[in-house]
């Protein structure tokens, strides 16, 4: 019996939705793949055909959330285009990350499942171009270009950015301050530091006259 693509997609969705509920109810650590299979009324083996590990399910959830955030962000940017307020580099970077944090909020407590993979500072550039890292850095690059940096932004710059970004994420998942306000402060200061450093490092010829 052949399974249609649609049926496959429906099954993936069912598994992911079931897992989301269970994670929220019992916590990520307390939920096993068997629990998920049972709740989704499928065999554990079937589950493994779709997701080899529990982490893979989280990754799917994260991916879904972040894609939604990317869409929202681009809508937001286009709707504010044309307003006379000039948006600084650090603010644009802040907005990208903040949109992601909002989308990831329901998953905050079990993001740690992805520290070794998707959100590792070492997550490598050889990942497929559709990986979250690749998409995120693509977005950051285009912001940098818009702010007058050359299109071939040095890989080290992006690596540094990624390290900061994943650092903020790690901080966020264990942030105990009210409404995770400390993360907002850390993010604000990190992006200001990064933008400030980048602008300072820009070759003199490209710097604005006023700063000479």
């Amino acid at each position: 019996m052949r399974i249609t693509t649609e049926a496959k997609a429906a099954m993936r969705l069912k598994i992911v939705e079931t897992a989301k509920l269970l994670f929220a109810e019992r916590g990520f650590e307390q939920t096993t793949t068997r629990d998920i299979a049972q709740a989704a009324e499928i065999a554990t083996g079937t589950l493994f055909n779709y997701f080899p590990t529990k982490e893979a399910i989280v990754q799917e959830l994260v991916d879904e959330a972040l894609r939604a955030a990317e869409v929202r962000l681009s809508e937001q940017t286009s709707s504010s285009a044309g307003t006379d307020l000039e948006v600084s580099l650090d603010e644009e970077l802040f907005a990208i990350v903040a949109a992601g944090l909002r989308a990831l909020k329901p998953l905050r407590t079990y993001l740690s499942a992805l520290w070794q993979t998707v959100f590792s500072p070492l997550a490598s550039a050889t990942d497929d171009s559709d990986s979250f890292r690749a998409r995120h850095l693509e977005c950051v690059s285009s912001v940098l270009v818009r702010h007058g940096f050359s299109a071939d932004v040095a890989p080290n710059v992006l690596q540094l950015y990624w390290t900061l970004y994943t650092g903020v994420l790690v901080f966020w998942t264990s942030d105990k301050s009210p409404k995770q306000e400390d993360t907002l402060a850390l993010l604000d200061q990190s992006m200001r530091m990064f933008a400030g450093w980048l602008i300072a490092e820009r070759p003199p010829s490209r710097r604005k006259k006023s700063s000479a």
Partner: protein
Amino acid sequence: MALTVAQLMDALPESEDREIEELAVADRVADPRSLASMWPVPVGRFHRLRLLGTLQAKIGAAYLFHWVRGWFRNAEENKRLLAETHWKTALRVLDSMTYLRGAVMKLGQMLATLPNVAPKEFIEALDCLYFQAPPMHWSLLRELVHNELGDDPENIFASFDKQAFAAASLGQVHRARLKTGEDVVVKIQYPGIARTIREDMRNLALFMLPSRLNRDWDCLKDQVDDLCLRMEYETDYEREASTQEAVRKLFSEDDGIVVPRVFREYSTSRVLTMERLDGVHLDEFMATNPSDDVRNEFARKLLRSGYRMSYTGRLMYADLHPGNFLFMPDGRLGLLDFGMVVPIEGEFWELMRRMDRGFSTGVQADRINGIKEWSWITDERQDAEPLRLLDQFTDWTWRSRSTIGEYDFCDEAEFRRGIDLFLALLRTRFARGRSQTLSISRLNFGLASFLYRLKAKVAVLPIAEQEVRATGWDRSEYALRCDA
């Protein structure tokens, strides 16, 4: 006791991080948007300190250190060493409090010109003694409003200005309009700054004044603790909202004094939304060359608002600086910012009653009795000089209140006399007094400098006598008669 800057610098304790100092990077980058200004600049002692990186700030710290050290001149060696160690730690805590940058710099500027400080410098320094949060861009504000009020500003408000309309000490103030049509301002705190300040204050108090030297020292410690407590108050917008609502109730339409209405549905401990008042600050008002009558009418309203708060509201407005008053085009006085208001209750209220007897008559014998009680003055010889100075200072503070007829607040020589007396008192290191002494001094100087700048000439006594009736105190034996 004039000190040179060099002498002061020598008073600063030696930095302990010699080896790291080598790594210090000077202001390599001229771009003001870069963080270079936050990098340490190697200019001698404590050059790794960020907040104290400027000369003015260093002078402020050095002066404070010099002053504190004076207390230990006669203390035993071990006590003195311990104090210095604590002091170094306190300096480090202080240094990490970057939101104090403006205040410390301004204070340093003023102290650098001691003892010849001019009224203008003194007033300017007073104006600047508040926190300074980093600026916030729109994207950060959106997140904060979303966190605090549950949705984006564009969904909650009919309109919301992206650009700040004024800086607040802990964040910034934005104009907005509610969906129900009211024009409001929204005051938003920089994330986490309230908690940071509270923790810092506790640490600072812990390290700065740990030892017990004598009675005076203990009093000083109480006063610093009180100051820290009030700074903590200022960080809580929920508390501020409650105070603001209480003060608002104290005034009726006839008073011509307004306190903006708070919109609780749009306020939290980090966000304060209130009615927007139309008006200008003191400097802008003075620039319009207002007539004597107009200026004096505002002065009377200011005085009335202060007395009303104390006597009817039993609240002390400890942060009397010009940013907190709006001169409205229709002649009303707008009162803002109730973060620093402290309740006058219990023993403090009783003291107020006794001090009324002591200070409001303008009679020296009454005053001396009041001062002796307030500052625990004994008949011992070493108390004679402080008593003499306190008497003069108290006379200076209360003179307008006991003058029958108009009092001229813009007499520069008289204002200068107040500053000189205050500095002379500082130099005696006499610190005995109630924990509220510092707040009261600040309030009195704030009031005097405000009315000085407003070039006010008004009769204070009738206003005070009218307002003090709300206390129900029996003043028949001593109250001054005024036929206003």
